């Protein structure tokens, strides 16, 4: 029980993600969380504006259930399965982030300098969240998948397309992490 309440090491988390992939395959479906963003657009009426959203969203019901489960799982993990939610990132990372003004590094689950409600008054933080979210939505649909659809499912199926997409994830991620975030944080 004590182990369960501590952060889970990579060799527990990784295999459990593979188990999720396996359970979805055995359920006759494929893992892909960003498809839910399209379904939610359709439910909100986007099918009246663009053909891309003309899907029978009820076929995607199963995936919305996975997303709902992921949400409830977040609630359970944060409230009932954690004593201390501080993320023990490496000391070099803590030092780098503190130099950029992220003092909560090593002491919180998410940086309070970005994800506290009062930070929404700061235009830079607001831009980070809105622009970042927009790129997540636009990019995943353009690429036809995200970390679950390409990096886990696609690569497990040895798909070249997914390998190219994952290279893209790192081109974009490294660019922002090293060249943009130092000015934005």
């Amino acid at each position, binding site marked *: 029980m004590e182990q369960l309440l501590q952060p889970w090491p990579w060799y527990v988390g990784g295999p459990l993600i593979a188990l999720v992939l396996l359970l979805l395959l055995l359920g006759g479906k494929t893992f892909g969380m960003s498809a839910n963003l399209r379904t939610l657009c359709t439910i909100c009426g986007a099918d009246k504006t663009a053909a*891309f959203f003309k899907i029978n969203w009820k076929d995607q019901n199963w995936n919305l259930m996975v997303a709902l489960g992921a949400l409830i799982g977040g609630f359970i993990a944060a409230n009932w399965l954690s004593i201390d939610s501080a993320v023990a990132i490496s000391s070099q990372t803590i030092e780098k982030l503190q130099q950029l003004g992220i003092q909560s590094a090593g002491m919180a*689950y998410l940086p309070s300098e970005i994800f506290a409600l009062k930070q929404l008054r700061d235009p830079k933080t607001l831009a980070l969240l809105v622009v970042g979210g927009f790129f*997540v939505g636009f990019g995943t649909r353009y690429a036809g998948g995200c*970390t679950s659809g390409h990096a886990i*499912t696609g690569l497990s199926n040895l798909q070249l397309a997914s390998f190219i997409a994952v290279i893209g994830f790192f081109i974009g991620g490294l660019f922002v992490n090293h060249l943009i975030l130092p000015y934005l944080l």
Partner: protein
Amino acid sequence: MKNSYFLVVGLLFGVVMYKSEAASWFRIYEMFQFDAFHMYGIIGSALTLGVIATQILKRGKFNSIFGTPLAIKDKDPGVTRYLIGGTLFGIGWALTGACPGPLFTLLGAGFLPILLVIISALLGTFVYGLLRDKLPH
């Protein structure tokens, strides 16, 4: 029955995302700085087991637990959409520290500003849907 199966799988996924800290902005930042093995260990071990499971299921004549055929599909071939789309997603991933799965998990964990990221992601998805025919794929 079907709905509750997928709800439970999602629940497991959400707990794993949170507890393994793959849903933490800090872990994503650390990953792109190459400062720790943690995220590479998660993705690498998930992938190693994922390849084994997928290849076994693909080669055998298995049905799903609901009696339907398995859905292990090949991706459409191409380079442009994967490279450009992937890069754009990577930009968003490094900024927000969240990919689409953890977006739901973090909202459930009580981080309300994530709602703004989700709404923006829906807007991004919608704009892609509007522009799709004009974009190179």
